[in-house]
């Protein structure tokens, strides 16, 4: 049943992915900027630029370049990034865990605080708690992430000295844990290396908090709305009349029923966080895929941009699938027709 659904959804995703491949290929070509001129270096003559163009295969007609690209894709070859000089697949594989670790932690922070704030606010609508929650959420979403990030760096690193230097995933004198998942927290825990775990967690704290604050608002608001609706519904009134403890009532009955729209929101938030963390990655020198794609874009380096968009496409499809499955787990009444 579940397997059938997965297969069905995956099949439905294929045209989407094909579209992503075509569109990214065309878009990167339509961008202003000439990679051949860029990489020919400052002293290039016209001939030198043409020579580079031939080396890069950019003198071929567009359809031939596209066929080449498809052929490479089929072999799992995403090309070479000219800016880092590495295969794009290797770059992405190395950087994806960095982005994912940061984004998931940011989401966890946002979900924890957001759901709590939403529930608290819904239980006392119109009270000062409600207003405070709304204020915090609004402030979080209105401040651009790079601003919050820079502010945190200034206060917690520069002035107070509590946070470690914003130097990426580890300080300069630690070395990464043995590679298992690519998530430093998990890998260092698996290796039993408390020192590295602490170092990685310290580096993660500020960027994750920055992302979390940004993502707080939609979650808090959705939780509050859903909770309000549920709390005023008949079955809750019945349960309350039957004398159920308030704690059981709120957490087991009301919250569980209010979760469905919250999960949808979480999925949405996660996907926009994957995009929004580009700025956070820049501020904290975080070696993620977002900053990678932006740097490549600036240099008109096609291969990494295409690889990035394709990866994101795959991620989104997977994410949607997971959310659909989560629906079923939360509410068995949901039956999804793919």
């Amino acid at each position, binding site marked *: 049943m579940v397997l059938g659904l997965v297969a069905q959804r995956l099949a439905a995703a294929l045209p989407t992915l094909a579209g992503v491949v075509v569109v990214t290929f065309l878009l990167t070509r339509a961008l202003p900027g000439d990679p051949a001129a860029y990489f020919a270096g400052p002293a*290039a003559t*016209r001939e030198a630029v043409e020579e580079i163009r031939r080396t890069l295969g950019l003198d071929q007609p567009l359809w031939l370049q596209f066929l080449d690209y498809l052929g490479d894709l089929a072999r799992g070859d995403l090309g070479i990034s*000219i800016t*880092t000089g590495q295969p794009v697949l290797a770059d992405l594989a190395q950087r994806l865990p960095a982005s994912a670790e940061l984004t998931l932690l940011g989401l966890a922070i946002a979900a924890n605080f957001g759901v709590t704030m939403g529930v608290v606010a819904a239980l006392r609508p119109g009270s000062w708690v409600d207003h405070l929650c709304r204020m915090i959420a609004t402030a979080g979403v209105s401040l651009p992430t790079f601003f919050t990030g820079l502010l945190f760096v200034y206060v917690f690193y520069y002035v107070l000295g509590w946070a470690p230097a914003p130097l990426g995933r580890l300080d300069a004198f630690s070395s990464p844990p043995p590679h298992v998942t690519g998530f430093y927290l998990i890998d260092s825990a698996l290796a039993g290396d408390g020192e590295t775990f602490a170092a990685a967690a310290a580096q993660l704290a500020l960027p994750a908090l920055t992302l979390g604050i940004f993502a707080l608002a939609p979650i808090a608001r959705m939780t509050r709305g859903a909770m309000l609706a549920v709390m005023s519904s008949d079955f809750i009134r019945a349960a309350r009349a039957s004398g159920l403890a308030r704690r059981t009532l709120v957490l087991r009955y009301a919250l569980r029923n209010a979760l469905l729209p919250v999960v949808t929101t979480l999925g949405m938030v996660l996907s926009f966080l994957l995009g929004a963390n580009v700025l956070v990655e820049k501020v904290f*020198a975080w070696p993620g895929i977002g900053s990678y794609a932006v740097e490549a874009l600036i240099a008109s380096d096609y291969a990494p941009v295409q690889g990035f968009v394709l990866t994101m496409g795959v991620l989104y499809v997977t994410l949607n699938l997971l959310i659909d499955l989560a629906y079923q787990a939360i509410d068995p009444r949901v039956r999804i027709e793919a």
Partner: protein
Amino acid sequence: MISRRHVLKAGTAAAAGAALSAPAIRGAAAQARRETLLLVSENPPNSTDIHGVGANRPAYEASWNLYDRLMTFGVKKDANGVDHYDYTRLEPELAEEWILTPTSVTFKLRRDATFHDGTPVTAEDVKWSFDRAVSVGGFPTFQMRAGSLEKPEQFVVVDRHTFRVDFIRTDKLTMPDLAVPVPAIYNSGLAKKHATAADPWAMEWLRANPAAGGAFRLERWVPGQEMVFARFDGWKSGRRPALARVIWRIVPQAGNRRALLERGDADISFDLPPKDFQELAAARRLKIVGTPVENAMQYIGMNVTRPPFNDVRVRRAIAHAIPYQRIMEQVTFGTAVPLFGGPAEPTEPVWPQPSPFVTDLDRARALLAEAGYPNGFETTLSFDLGLASLNEPIAVLVAESLARLGIRVTINKIPGANWRNELLKKELPLITNTFGGWLNFPDYFFFWAYHGQNAVFNTMSYQNPEMDALIDRSRFTQDEAEYRAAVKGFIAKAWEDVPRVPLFQPKLMVAMRENVEGYRYWFHRQLDYRVLAKV
């Protein structure tokens, strides 16, 4: 390799055995930190091979410290007492000595020098490296050609430790060109193992795997994030470097780079905005060194092939309408040398030197009226967005000033990736740009920027046979008096025809912690780890 973690682990083990006291552990960590330089920059190196396609400036730094050249330049003190490479003195690096004749130069290689893998350095390696530089095309081939080093036949292996370069013409740039970063010496045996039929020069492999013998080995490279260098203890080509390790981290945010330096977490960085350098210098918490970049200038270029800038009176009007002083105050914050308000005629054959122009709007207005534009005209001022922190305020100030002459300026920001291409097309009417040459000769600058060969750096498409004659004479004359006359002649011509208006000579600014010693300015504007120390 000593990382903090290892030191601390060793410390824990030792503490368990009660063999080491706590201060001793801290001492070891402090020792490691003192021998380690943490360098932060905005852009990551994309290669360790300076011959590679698209190797960027940071890659030059990697190559410079990983590889040796045959010769290097001497050192002198500049006006501020800072170490400055001396382009008039060539000193031994991999070559112990050399014999220079009018038709060739013969190098004696060090007999005890080895590459990082222990293979001895031979004349075969030198030949392979030079052949590669002139054969692979692109930047390295271009740079070699600048010193009349063009064909593999010029490079001759005499015996295992003797190597000769035959000259194809007398060119004063040949010898200095052998000491720039491009003619680095590669371990040819190692490189050939990784060459393929499609890639005979092992371009692919050498990008990430140095086959080098320089003062530092590549310990780790995480592209886009960090590069870690460790001292090569078998290095014979110079004095043993004081630093055991150099960690180069990429920090994209300028504010964070400054914070890292101020907090003492990073030791040195070039990449800060001019205003930050000014503030840091005033606060005296960090050592700030600014060295005028030799043979370089920021300028306003005018396309002389089409109206209105084909009229020399319009160009002179522009030269008198630029708000020079405001640019110095509001854009460079003292991190540059002014290039205006000089004598009417050049008195010394030096470059860059101040132009005779000063801001004089009445004069500019009169010149414009004379040229038939009493009410001004419309034009576009373009710049490279990649260097926007400097270019954008300049463009705004210039546009503002020109508006007072009735010249309506549209500012055109061109993305870095597209800038070169636009320059190659030679269609932009008005630009602000920067240009510098590695080799510090006025004629070298003029050959690229003013000569009728119309290279990409002649962004004005300026062509004048009299100018070309003066430039060519200065390049190849052996007579000192004739040389001086020719250089002063072409500078005077540049003031008279004014296809480009110099604004300022930028300074290479670097901020370092107080305990960093030995910083040396190099023409390639990258760090030389070999001479740096922490005290």
